[in-house]
């Protein structure tokens, strides 16, 4: 038996090698002759084979053995790499990952005999010929050939659902299942299969209908349409691992008929990685390998870190109290030795708590490579499916972010990247016609920018036609013709993020950038981030996402109102002003002020919070910005800047209008955090009036 530590070491190494295999496969697809890449994969497979053999993981050892064999042949020039082989190898790498999940108990039991057979099939030099409608190899038909599935044709409704889902980043598969002849309780089995499928995605249709299946009113076979983010191999293997499933057949539905793309795509329009990426991939793993052995890690529940953080918060409060006590002590006993000792202790405690706080913060940070590493493969698959060629460049993978932020940012990024490939970047033919390089360029970059991390997604594709959006805004009745014309381009682009602005039917008109963009923005704003869009018609688009490094701590402007302290997140504060009461003007019933020739709606925070207003001559104003809108907020006093730890108000209070949380101040008091976005939104109605006027 092996100890947990030994298994942990094995898994860490396995993860590292799997990443090497995956990364290098992507390079290999582009440069089938690259000896160094071949060598890397060969070595990684060899290492896994060795260690998994020792650990007794037979399936993994046999699969890596086949991969190693194949690469040995390729190295010696006996077999040449083709796109079908790459597909099979990706399938093999997926299978390895599933085997890893099986070991860690995160996944189901996996049957690898199919994929082992496929890899060894490549040894002869010719892999299975691909079918045109699918980029991954078809799930094999059973050897006896007794059952042939004839697919039920799709209707319009299903197709439109699929199209919408694809835009959201899902694949659609037709899945045919045949149960064992001896299967006793077909309905129960069917139910289990449905459950399994629903864990991987959403079933949008089944033939026969689900009720019939549950009642057992079917022969042995049934068919479903599944929307999922999993890949074909994963689904196949998961389904085959269910008992009494005799046969599974999968067919990828390509509903995205992007004009000429689909036909000209041919069997192997490989998604290609850029030179920059290639270069980086070569250096990065070596570096990581060097350090990976030295760094010892422990897996810790994030909740435990949160608790630690809370406890440190307690210490910070005690520290503040202690230093205040030390001051009193000193003023009473002068430079008594005791007083000095207390001062010393207070200072030391202060130092230690700050360090502790910082270290716990750091423990929550992870490099963005956690999510970025998934993208090259995704870009490849998406590009291949759409018949596009992409140079995908990734930079700044080592940039670190709070774990929670990383979890939240994954989906918006997937969405933006898919959108860029789907609607931004043109087909190779179209690009050549326009005098652009054949392959589109897609850059994903992360970098630090003061207390923020900035992630950009930039493509050199079509760009967005601002006038078409103006037209769309008029069609939707959001503005009249003149109103729309008065909007600046920036304001027009901002419309894309409005919920329901774009619909599926306008996808081609607007190059589809509007679909689900409101979801992207909401997700990013939930973690106190901002998203911006720059675009130039014919030259491409660039999305800039700026995020706080951590969700837990933000810099804020502290203000007071009626003896209570409120915090404005600094990321939303533009400036602070002191104005005279007579500078306030009125538009209708609304108060406004003019700041540098811009009319800003004025919001009295005390009134907003239902606390009655004070009538002072001099007013303190905080100018709050969110999504291109600005509002002047009147407060009683400005107290200064401070770093605060964000705490949720809890489920019981739920969403309170105008508040986004609370924080605990140095003296133990609770201060409320103002939801700048919400306030701007509330006051936004006033601003609209002003636009129209």
């Amino acid at each position, binding site marked *: 038996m092996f100890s947990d530590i030994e298994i942990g070491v094995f898994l860490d190494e396995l993860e590292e090698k799997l990443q090497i295999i995956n990364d290098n496969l992507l390079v290999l697809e582009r440069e089938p002759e690259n000896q160094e890449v071949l060598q890397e994969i060969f070595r990684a497979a060899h290492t896994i084979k060795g260690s998994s053999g020792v650990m007794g993981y037979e399936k993994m050892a046999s699969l890596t053995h086949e991969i190693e064999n194949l690469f040995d042949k390729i190295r010696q020039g006996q077999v040449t790499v083709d796109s079908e082989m790459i597909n099979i190898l990706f399938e093999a790498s997926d299978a390895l990952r599933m085997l890893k999940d099986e070991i860690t108990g995160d996944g189901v039991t996996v049957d690898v005999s199919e994929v082992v057979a496929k890899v060894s099939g490549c040894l002869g030099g010719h892999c299975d010929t691909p079918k045109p409608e699918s980029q991954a190899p078809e799930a094999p038909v059973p050897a006896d050939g007794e059952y042939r599935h004839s697919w039920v044709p799709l209707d319009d409704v299903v197709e439109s659902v699929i199209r919408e889902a694809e835009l959201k980043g899902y694949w659609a598969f037709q899945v045919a299942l045949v149960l064992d002849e001896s299967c006793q309780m077909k309905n129960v089995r069917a139910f289990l299969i449905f459950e399994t499928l629903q864990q991987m995605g959403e079933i949008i249709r089944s033939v026969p209908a689900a009720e019939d299946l549950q009642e057992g009113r079917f022969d042995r076979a049934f068919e479903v349409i599944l929307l999922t983010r999993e890949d074909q191999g994963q689904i196949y293997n998961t389904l085959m691992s269910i008992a009494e499933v005799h046969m599974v057949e999968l067919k990828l539905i390509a509903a995205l008929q992007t004009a000429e793309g689909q036909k000209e795509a041919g069997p192997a329009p490989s998604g290609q990685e850029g030179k920059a990426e290639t270069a980086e991939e070569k250096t990065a793993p070596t570096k990581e390998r060097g350090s990976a052995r030295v760094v010892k890690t422990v897996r810790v529940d994030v909740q435990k870190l949160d608790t630690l953080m809370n406890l440190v918060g307690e210490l910070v409060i005690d520290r503040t109290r202690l230093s205040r006590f030390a001051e009193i002590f000193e003023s009473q006993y002068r430079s008594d030795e005791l007083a000095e000792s207390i001062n010393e202790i207070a200072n030391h405690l202060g130092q230690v708590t700050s360090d502790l706080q910082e270290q716990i913060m750091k423990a929550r940070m992870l490099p963005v490579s956690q999510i970025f590493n998934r993208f090259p493969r995704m870009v490849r698959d998406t590009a291949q499916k759409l018949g596009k060629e992409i140079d995908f460049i990734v930079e700044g993978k080592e940039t670190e972010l709070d774990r929670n932020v990383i979890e939240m940012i994954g989906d918006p990024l997937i969405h933006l990247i898919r959108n860029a490939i789907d609607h931004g970047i043109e087909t190779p033919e179209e690009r050549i016609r326009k005098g652009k390089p054949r392959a589109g360029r897609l850059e994903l970059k992360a970098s630090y920018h003061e207390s923020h991390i900035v992630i950009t997604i930039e493509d050199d594709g079509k760009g967005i036609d601002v006038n078409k959006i103006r037209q769309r805004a008029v069609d939707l009745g959001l503005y009249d013709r003149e109103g729309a014309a008065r909007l600046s381009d920036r304001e027009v682009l901002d419309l894309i993020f409005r919920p329901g602005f774009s619909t599926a039917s306008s996808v081609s008109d607007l190059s589809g950038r509007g679909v689900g963009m409101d979801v992207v923005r909401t997700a990013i704003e939930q973690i106190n981030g901002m998203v911006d869009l720059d675009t130039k018609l014919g030259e491409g688009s660039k999305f800039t996402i700026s995020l706080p490094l951590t969700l837990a701590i933000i810099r804020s402007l502290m203000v007071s109102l009626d003896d209570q302290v409120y915090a404005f997140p600094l990321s939303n504060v533009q400036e602070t002003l002191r104005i005279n009461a007579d500078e306030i003007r009125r538009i209708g019933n609304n108060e406004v002020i003019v700041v540098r020739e811009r009319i800003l709606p004025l919001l009295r925070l005390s009134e907003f919070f239902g606390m009655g207003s004070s009538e002072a001559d001099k007013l303190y104003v905080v100018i709050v910005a969110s999504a291109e809108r600005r509002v002047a907020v009147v407060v009683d006093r400005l107290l200064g800047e401070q770093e605060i730890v964000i705490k949720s108000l809890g489920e*019981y209070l739920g969403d309170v209008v105008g508040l986004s949380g609370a924080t605990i101040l140095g003296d133990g008091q609770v201060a*409320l955090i103002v939801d700048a976005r919400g306030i701007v939104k509330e006051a936004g109605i006033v601003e609209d009036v002003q636009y129209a006027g």
Partner: protein
Amino acid sequence: MSSQGREEEQIVVFQLHNQTYGIDITSVREIIRMEEITEIPNAPDFLEGIINLRGGIVPIIDLGKRFGLVSGERTSQSRIIIVQVSNQIFGMIVDSVQEVLRVPASSIEPPPPMLGGVDAAYLRGVALLEERLVILLEHSRILFEKEQQQLEEVINQ
């Protein structure tokens, strides 16, 4: 949630508006002195605000106001009873906390329809102890009813 089936239960006995109430001790996390409470704008009347309880934010309700009575005066005897219902923690302000009593299950009677102006929905029963009448609270109903439903939905999932 209720403690039926036990032969004896322990209750924390407290005063509110000159009445004696009791709450099952298993739901009580701790009892603290009054401290400064941060008001939440636009919140329901009975919600006094939030406090910092060892680094966590805990909502505090004025139990008197929750029962639709006038808010009592805060004295040095006033206490906040921190209660946990499912995974929710909240505090309720009471006039004073007196003792912890053991109550035989047999001495608990269902609540009469109206009792001291307090809605029967909040009550679990009444216990007669050494000539004293202790009104037992159904702590799970002290939160919003809507919230309560949501809680149950979450739990049932």
